[in-house]
């Protein structure tokens, strides 16, 4: 009798504790069972959704938590909960531009994390948890920051154009003949200015990526022609560095639905990195292929018909301890900084974002001092279209 009472009290204590934790959380939390029905909803979730928790109980999680990405309703098939069912966890960040719709139809920007409880530790009747947070304020700050970068970059371009054009005119002898030293110094001014132009362009691209205003406009593209033209542009540097370039292209690549400008940017960035970070007399290998009915690409099983390319070099490699950061904004590996002073740390960040937004995948293998391979795949059906207001360039 006493034992039962103690047990009951303990249970009540536990429940009170849990309730206290749940109700004091600033994030909204909804838990659901194996039938996808809501079993727990905390106070923050109620306030955000404008739905009393008892009104949500027993309803389908997708019905309670109605999500939009930009202005498109997120269907059940591609909802974070469904995706978490496949991979265990699924996160939605601010840049993913997700909104939840409250009871009155108002859309609130959120970040979100969905987790599925697996294995024996999962309690009866509890399948998974979704946590979400109102990011209206974070978004405003983020937007202000990106708009500032965009505005500042436009303003920077005018004086940069003046420096560039007048230096070019001096170098062309428009204001009279130059001495050898004058020419050399002016060339340094020109090169330095060009670096600044590149940096401004990269910052503009980053701000467009982060604002979500960039467009992906896929059109039928001959990828092989594009690849060859990028290689052609790099020929003088490749020759200068006596790099042996091996090109292995499949003969049967169908026209691919690509935003050519973006795909070009991805390939161009990888090839120029490979050439830049490979020493004199090194090797760069390029492959391009279309894989139908599965197959393997760089040790990965392809689950669908795929367009794949790779860029492999015998260069300086990415140090093991920095490999997780290589796609981060403004990050440059220590050995990269040492071997090449030039570089913004934005290139890989930009192309990763392009690949992610257009439905592709990008990954790499690398060993310091031995070399690096980058791999990129897209569904053979094409890059994913994205509406927006500004082209990257």
């Amino acid at each position, binding site marked *: 009798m006493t034992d039962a009472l103690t047990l009951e009290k303990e249970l009540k204590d536990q429940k009170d504790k849990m309730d206290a934790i749940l109700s004091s959380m600033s994030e909204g939390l909804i838990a659901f069972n194996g039938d996808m029905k809501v079993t727990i909803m905390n106070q923050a979730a109620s306030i955000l959704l404008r739905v009393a928790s008892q009104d949500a109980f027993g309803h389908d999680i997708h019905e309670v938590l109605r999500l939009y990405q930009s202005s498109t309703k997120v269907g059940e098939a591609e909802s974070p909960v469904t995706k978490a069912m496949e991979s265990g966890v699924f996160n939605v960040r601010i840049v993913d531009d997700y909104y939840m719709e409250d009871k009155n139809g108002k859309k609130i920007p959120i970040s979100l994390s969905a987790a599925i409880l697996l294995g024996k530790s999962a309690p009866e009747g509890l399948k998974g948890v979704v946590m979400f947070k109102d990011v209206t304020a974070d978004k405003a700050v983020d937007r202000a920051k990106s708009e500032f970068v965009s505005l500042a970059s436009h303003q920077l*371009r*005018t004086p*940069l154009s*003046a420096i*560039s054009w007048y230096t070019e005119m001096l170098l*062309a002898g*428009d204001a009279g003949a130059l001495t050898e030293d004058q020419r050399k110094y002016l060339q340094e001014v020109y090169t330095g200015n060009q670096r600044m132009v590149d940096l401004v362009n990269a910052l*503009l691209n980053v701000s467009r990526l982060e604002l979500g205003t960039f467009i992906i406009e896929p059109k039928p593209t001959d990828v092989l022609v594009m690849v060859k033209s990028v290689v052609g542009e790099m020929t003088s540097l490749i020759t200068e560095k006596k790099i042996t370039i091996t090109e292995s292209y499949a003969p049967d690549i169908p026209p691919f639905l690509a935003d050519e400008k973006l795909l070009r940017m991805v390939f161009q960035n990888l090839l120029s990195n490979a050439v830049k970070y490979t020493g004199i007399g090194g090797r760069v290998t390029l492959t391009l292929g279309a894989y139908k009915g599965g197959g393997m690409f760089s040790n990965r099983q392809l689950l669908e018909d795929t367009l794949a390319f790779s860029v492999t070099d015998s260069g300086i490699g990415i140090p093991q301890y920095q490999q997780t950061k290589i796609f981060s904004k403004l990050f440059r590996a220590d050995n990269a900084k040492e071997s090449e002073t030039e570089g913004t740390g934005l290139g890989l960040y930009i192309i990763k974002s392009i690949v992610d937004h257009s439905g592709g995948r990008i990954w790499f293998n690398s060993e310091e001092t031995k070399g690096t391979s980058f791999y990129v795949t897209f569904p053979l059906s094409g890059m994913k279209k994205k509406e927006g207001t500004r082209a990257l360039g």
Partner: protein
Amino acid sequence: MENKKVILVVEDDTPLLNALKEKLSDAGFTVLGAKNGEDGLASALSGHPDLIVLDILMPKMDGLEMLKKMREDAWGKNVPVMILTNLSDDGSIAHQMTEETFDYIIKSDIKIEAVVEKVKAKLGV
């Protein structure tokens, strides 16, 4: 006397306007300049240049507004226009690109010599 082709450069930044004027004159063109869309429009409609190099962000009247007004004119609707700006295309501009508005170039991405080459190519000189 050779019949010289006339280029109108509409650009509010004085150093850039002067550079363009100088380069295009050196290439044998007669060059008119204007520092905003209003003056540019007046100069275009009175001077009937053979080609217009047009900036977008300018005081009084911007380049796109000037272009719109000029295209309403019987002469102005056919004159070739090269947009030379530092404003990245917001998508709306690409839609307005026609055979007459033939190029959209970012100033900081192009050599001034290449601007001259493009003008020459368009006018076939």
